């Protein structure tokens, strides 16, 4: 018994950033889906090279050094799920170097997502709430008893733990008071609690008896107390939507997985495992149900071409594609799927490919020799290298006819040069 290459490719795409032949061959050796899931969750194999050391300022050189380091990790790691979830938490607990005015604090928060992002959800949320990057991004460091301010309080419930409709405006006001006094040290680099700036009075939250709520207790109340079920469904739906297919918290697929998440004490690895082992994850509905985001698609392309990220892409490309880490445009995050389908996406993707094909051709040149191959051999090798297991008959014949056309025009020498471009622009390669 072993799993099919179609199943293995699905699991590799969702848990990581592309499908190489070597990865596919290894995973199809797994006896069953459970064994395969265990393999992609072998967190102990995560590389240990450190995140770059960076400046305490808006420094675009350091920003790009960090971003390419991270994208290169995505490209090369044997444990893609760690990077996927680190990116997920980065988009869940959004921030911007421009607002925070320090890439160092962004990197510090990134390490937090990396260290805690597969662990206890409450520990992660508590740590993020008092992380300097978040305290500055959502202004909570200046939230004082004499003029409570709602920015963090609202997003803690709306975006981070509960979702709209599961709290009201009175809860927002009470939550803002609960989070007064949670500030920063004088150098802005560490959390410090100021009791004299905290509103210690009684507050009514979620219709519970009034008490002197103080910030961190509210997170415990949400994730483990009276809002635990709602909160676990909210988080489960968000993670399910990036790993399986897009759902809302009230989708029938969510409740049983959220129950497993709670039973596991809010362990995020247990949540990921439950999703990857669910029938829904392996169902036809989940297959190709997601659009590869720009970062996913770029990394998968460079992985297929064997080109390092630092050679393969410019900072301006990442910005034009609209998914620049550490530079979220607004608190709502990047969006997904439909956000990445537009003429602009097609333009920026082909514009980038028209340049990266030169890098590929003059470095790794993965398609060397195909200038003298038959059109079918060209197509087979292109799909194999790009991890496209089951191209549609139309896509296959388009690639075959393209190679035949170049040959009949006397342009066969250009096949190795242009095959990366046409492969990365297949509809099959742009979905996950």
């Amino acid at each position, binding site marked *: 018994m072993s799993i099919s290459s179609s199943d293995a490719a699905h699991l590799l795409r969702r848990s990581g950033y592309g499908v190489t032949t070597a990865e596919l061959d290894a995973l199809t050796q797994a006896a069953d889906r459970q064994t395969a899931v265990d393999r992609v969750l072998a967190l102990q194999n995560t590389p240990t090279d450190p995140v770059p050391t960076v400046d305490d300022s808006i420094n675009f050189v350091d920003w790009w050094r960090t971003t390419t380091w991270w994208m290169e990790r995505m490209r090369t790691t044997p444990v893609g799920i760690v990077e996927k979830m680190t990116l997920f938490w980065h988009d869940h607990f959004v921030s911007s170097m421009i*607002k925070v005015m320090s890439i160092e604090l962004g990197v510090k928060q990134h390490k937090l997502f990396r260290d805690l992002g597969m662990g206890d959800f409450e520990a992660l949320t508590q740590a993020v709430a008092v992380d300097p990057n978040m305290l500055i991004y959502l*202004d909570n460091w*200046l*939230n*004082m*008893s004499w*003029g*409570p*301010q*709602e*920015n963090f309080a*609202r997003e803690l419930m*709306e975006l981070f733990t509960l979702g*709209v409709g599961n709290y009201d405006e009175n809860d927002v006001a009470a939550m*803002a008071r609960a989070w*007064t006094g949670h500030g920063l040290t004088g150098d802005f680099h560490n959390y410090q609690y100021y009791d004299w*700036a905290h509103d210690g009075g009684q507050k009514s939250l979620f219709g519970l008896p009034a008490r002197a709520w103080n910030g961190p207790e509210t997170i415990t109340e949400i994730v483990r107390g009276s809002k635990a079920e709602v909160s676990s469904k909210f988080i489960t739906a968000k993670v399910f939507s990036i790993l399986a297919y897009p759902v809302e918290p009230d989708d029938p697929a969510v409740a049983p997985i959220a129950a497993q998440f709670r039973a596991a004490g809010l362990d995020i690895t247990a949540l990921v495992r439950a999703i990857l082992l669910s029938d829904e994850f392996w169902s036809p509905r989940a*297959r*190709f149900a*997601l*659009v590869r985001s720009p970062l996913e698609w770029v990394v998968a392309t460079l992985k297929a071409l064997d080109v390092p990220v630092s050679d393969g892409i410019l900072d*301006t490309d990442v*910005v*034009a*594609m*609209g*998914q620049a880490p550490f530079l979220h*445009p*607004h*608190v*709502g995050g990047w*969006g997904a*799927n439909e956000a*990445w*389908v*537009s*003429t*602009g*996406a*097609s*333009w*920026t993707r*082909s*514009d980038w490919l*028209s340049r990266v094909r030169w890098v590929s051709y003059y470095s790794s040149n993965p398609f060397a020799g195909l200038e003298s191959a038959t059109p079918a051999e060209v197509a087979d090798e292109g799909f194999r290298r790009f991890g496209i297991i089951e191209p*549609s008959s*139309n*896509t296959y014949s*388009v690639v075959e006819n*393209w190679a035949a056309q170049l040959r009949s025009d006397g*342009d066969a020498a*250009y096949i190795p040069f*242009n095959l990366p*471009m*046409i492969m990365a*622009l*297949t*509809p*099959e390669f742009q*979905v996950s």
Partner: protein
Amino acid sequence: MTSLSRRRFLQAAVAASAVGATIPRWMMPAGALPLASDEGMLLVVNLGGGLDSLSLLVPSDGARRSAYEAARGSEALAAGSLPPATVDHGFNPSLTHLSNRFSAGGVALVDGIGLPESLRSHSLSTAAVQSASLTPIPTGWLGRHLDGYSDRGDELMSVAVSSTVPLHVRGDVNQAAAMPPGTGMWGTDPNNRVDQTTADAVRAFSNSPADHGPWADLIAATGERALDKASLSVGLPTSSTAPRGIRQDMEIAAHVFNADIGTRVVAVGAGGYDTHGSQNTKTAHLLGELDQAIEGFFATLASDRHNRVMVLVVSEFGRKPGLTSSLGSDHGYAGISMLIGPNVAGGLHSESPSLTNLDAQDCMIPTIDLRSLYAPVLDGWLGGDSNAVLGGTYSPLGVIAASPGTNK
């Protein structure tokens, strides 16, 4: 609206309702139609985060000034430092050029704007403002309007100068082109035979379904249309020497209007207006950028387009009048919008909201429905049908003084 453009719009709307969106996307006709000289164009500017209306139009005299000083305390902007606006309000000190435009009758201000329900979440309120609907729907008000044209499905009818397409211009059929600054247009060199062969292959991906779900088919169809539209966009400056951000984006927007490639609506956006802290410093900078961006836009816009283009500025909500400990303000309710251009009816078109009679959450209560601003823009400027687009009749504000292509 002239009878010609009205007829064309209605014919297209009938055709659209007869066949609906059931035509496969890869069968849509391509090719931009140039606009007639009496058709209006719109630049819609989204100020993301929730613009503080009191920082834009500042009370300078009378009872509202007293209430403003009481609410903002030491952060109240000095009345003497404000560029002139109305008799008892001035503009933010950073808006000197806008003040001049206002004095010349080229700015319609709509203060106290909002929808019938207060949505204090950024995402919900942005969706409501851009869809003109309190219940979530997947189309924007301008996207629905553009769906009515016979060249529907032509993404160059609306262009977003950004990486993604805002809801404003998303229709059932109409897909706006996202045109991020600086993007090259691959596949447009007719002399590059190999690239043309490759581009033809990319087009052919949409010949039939890819058996990889609906996203793959949409991507294939979008890729084909992107190549078709790329050749129309060749030569269009996609960057400028203006500083990155709203100033550059609005200059690119002017180039798009100048190019006459069938574009009726351009969407741009600026972020950072979520001023929970250090509000005065932030709005001074942000509104200064906006002021420069508006000047840069009209300076770049061809002279024969000035009386055919208007700039609409919107934000998802206003902010509370009260100040927080971080010298900013929280999400509010009533906000402010502006319509800018030589053909607007200049002045303040609504009553500024009360600073003393607030709602239960201490927010200003709207005095005018947002859709009363959208309606005249649709009917009087874009030649559309506001009843159909907005799903109801909203008494239109008299913000349009002269129809497109004429001078007031």
